[in-house]
C-alpha cells in the first residue's frame, strides 16, 4: 500500500470540497439575485459563469495534483 494513493485521495477530496462550497455559495447568491431582479438575468448569468470558472479551476488543480501523485505511486 503506497501512501501516495492516500495523498491523491485526500488531495482530490479536500480540494474539490472547497471548490464545491464556493460554487454552491455562488449559485445560491446568483439565483437569489435573479429572483430579486429578473431583468438582469443575462448579466448575472454571465458573471456567475465566469466566477464559477475561477472557483472551479482550483478544484481542477487539486484533481491534476491527485493524478500526478497517482502516477507517482505506480
Amino acid at each position, binding site marked *: 500500500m503506497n501512501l501516495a494513493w492516500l495523498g491523491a485521495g485526500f488531495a482530490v477530496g479536500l480540494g474539490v470540497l472547497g471548490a464545491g462550497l464556493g460554487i454552491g455559495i455562488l449559485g445560491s447568491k446568483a439565483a437569489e439575485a435573479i429572483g430579486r431582479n429578473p431583468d438582469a438575468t443575462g448579466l448575472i448569468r454571465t458573471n456567475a459563469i465566469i466566477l464559477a470558472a475561477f472557483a472551479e479551476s482550483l478544484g481542477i*488543480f487539486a484533481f*491534476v495534483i491527485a493524478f500526478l501523485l497517482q502516477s507517482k505511486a505506480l
Partner: protein
Amino acid sequence: MRQTLLFIAIVNGAVVAIAAMAGQLPPWPDIHQPEITGIPLIELSGEEISISNSLFTMWLVMALLIGASWLATRRLSDEPGRLQSLIEQLVQGFSDFVVSVGGQSALRFLPLFGTLFLFIVTSNWLGVVPFVGQVAWLKAPTSDYHVTAGLALTSFVYYQSVGIRKLKLSYFTRWFNLSGFREGVFLGFVMVVVGLIELISEIFRILSLLLRLWGNIWGGEIALSVITALVVVPIFAAPLIGLELLVGLVQALVFSLLVLVYITLAIESHDEGHEDAQDSHPAAHGDTSQIAQEVTHA
C-alpha cells in the same frame, strides 16, 4: 429519441449477453484510462517533433469548420437557405453576447471569440463520439494538454499585444506603478507590491486557462470510461454522456469568455485605481501622461 435509445440499449444488452454466454467477457472493472497526451503517429524528428493523434484530429476539426464556413458563405443571398440562416443566427448570437460582455467596441474581437468557441466546442464534443479516443488515429484535441497550452499561449500573446498597441507604454504602469509615492512612501510601496502580484498572476492566467479546459475534458473522459466499465452495458452511461456534452459547451464558453474578458481588461486603462473607473477616458489618459512625466523627471 426514446425509441432510438431503447434500440441501442437492446443491442448493447444483447451483445453483452452473448459475450457472457460465450465466456468472452473481460474481467469485471475493465477500465481503459485515457492517455494524458497524444501518442506520436509519425515521428518527424524523434519523439519530440511528431504528428500525434490529437494533432491529426485537430486538423480534422479545422477542416470541418473551414469546410462548413466555406459551404455556408459560398453563395450568400438575401433569402438565406438553411445552412446560411443557421450560421447567421450563430453569428448574431455571438455578436449579441460579445456586446453584452464588452460593449460595442469589443465587436472587433468577435472573430477571435467565435473561432475559439467553435473550435473548442467541436473538440470537446468529439470526446464523447464513439471511436474517438479508442482507435489509434483519433483523440479529442482538448483532452491533450499541448493543444490547450497552445490555445492559452496564443490568447495570452494576443491580449498582451492588443493592450500594448492600445495603451503604448502606459500599459506597463499596471505592473510597475510608481504613482503611489506621491501620496507617501507606504502607499507607494504597497502599489509596487500589488503591481508585482499582478505580474505574477498573468502567469497563473495561462496556467488556469490551460488546466481548466484540459482537466475538465480529460477528467470527463476518465469518468466516462470508469462508469462504462462499472455498469458493463455501455448505454447505462448515457446520462453521463449528456453531462459531458453540457460540460463541453460550458467550458468552451468559459474559455472564450475569459479570453474576451482578459482582452477588455487589457485595453482599459486603470491608472488611478478603480475609483476612477467611471471617469471619461480622455481624463484617464491625461493622468497617464502626467504620471509618465513625473516618472521621467524623478
